[in-house]
């Protein structure tokens, strides 16, 4: 009797499994898509200091009074380059012992060390300690600024700053830098009559580059 019960149970199990198979059985196949996306590198920076000079050799007798130095910092390396190339995100220009009509002339190289074309869309001059505002003073043929006057709290101009392309003297704005291409840049600073003795004036300049295909959309929302 007990064997009969077990037999019936086994039969029920076989039937259940069979019905389950009928419900789920199907053939299936797959093909595969393997996508690999290697992102490019967008990297614009200062490559090297080309020259630093001032106007003191225009005087007679020539004196060495003021001084200007340029220091590159915050290195970044474009790993996609062969060989890899290092550029610097920060250029620090320091004038010591300045005086009215002292003029520094800096020449520096700006490079696209990435793999994506870069379009310079803006040059933003920001006044720092001792300065109040930075006003655009002159523009190139395309009406892009090349000259800024930095004024103190009284509204007096104490520094005049020129930033432009070395070869054409045009603004850096609306200038496209291809990958692996460098652009020599002139940065001239003139100290004006109203600059005060024993003061330190600071300012910063931000050169904004965006990928070339998005330049028309700058400033971005």
């Amino acid at each position, binding site marked *: 009797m007990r064997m009969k019960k077990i037999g019936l149970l086994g039969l029920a199990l076989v039937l259940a499994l069979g019905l389950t198979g009928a419900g789920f059985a199907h053939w*299936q196949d797959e093909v595969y898509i393997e996508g690999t996306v290697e992102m490019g590198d967008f990297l614009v920076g200062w490559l090297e200091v080309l020259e630093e000079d001032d106007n003191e050799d225009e005087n007679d007798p020539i004196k060495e009074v003021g001084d200007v130095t340029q220091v590159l910092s915050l290195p970044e390396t474009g790993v996609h380059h062969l060989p890899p190339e290092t550029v610097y995100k920060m250029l620090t220009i320091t004038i010591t012992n300045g005086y009215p009509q002292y003029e520094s002339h800096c020449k520096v190289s700006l490079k696209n060390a990435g793999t994506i074309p870069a379009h310079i869309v803006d040059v933003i001059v920001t006044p720092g300690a001792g300065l109040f505002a930075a006003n655009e003073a002159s523009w190139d043929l395309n009406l892009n600024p090349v000259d800024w006057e930095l004024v103190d709290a009284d509204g007096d101009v104490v520094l005049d700053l020129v930033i432009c392309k070395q070869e054409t003297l045009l603004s850096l704005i609306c200038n496209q830098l291809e990958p692996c291409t460098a652009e020599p840049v002139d940065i001239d600073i003139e100290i004006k009559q109203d600059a005060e003795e024993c003061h330190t004036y600071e300012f910063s300049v931000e050169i904004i580059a965006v990928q070339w295909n998005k330049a028309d959309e700058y400033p971005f929302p």
Partner: protein
Amino acid sequence: MKGRLGKFGIAFLALALALGLTGAGFAHWSDDVQIEGTVEMGSLTLAFDYVEPPSCQEYYRDPATGALVEGEWLGKEVGDCDAWFDDYMEDVHSGKRGYKTLYIAITNAYPQYIVHTTFKLHNIGTIALDITEYIITGEKRDSTGAVVYDLLWYDPDGDYIGSLYEDVNGNGVVDAGDLEVINLEITNALPYQIDPCKTNKEEIDMEFKQDAEECHTYTIHVSVVAIQWNKA
């Protein structure tokens, strides 16, 4: 001796009689018929087409009209794309050929770089099949090849027009803090059927977003799932 032989004789006789009676009980003529069943199973085999290779095309979006234009902005050659089939296969049943894997390689990509890849699916088996599902996964890797984040497919309405997100918090679901890096669209609408010997052209479109990170590699895996048409 004579008595013993008599006993044996009686026993033997009884045995012979018993066997004889048994034979009389079971003896009959018999015959049978047989069924020989032969079932040749078909084959359900989906492949990428052997004849027509895949192709990819770059686009940019015209900022004035929003329309896609072939090539890259201002005619430059910056990004690059390539597509090819691999993992050659033959369906043993039909003898037809195809490939199991489509590779898409995109290099030097940047935000708003757009790549469309077309490819042909071929039913090289003998059973009609339905394309029922795309299973989309992926990873973000750094320059050493190490996985930085998994990529999560986000397509709330299931039409395979969606985005891949970096799973920044690693919880396996798209939520706050995850970054959208690739818009991805696969045509055609599912499910659809491919009969044996028939092909169907499909397209997978990708557009890279602002948060896609420089100098990183995004690897995307798509499984195209097909099941027999009567079970779809």
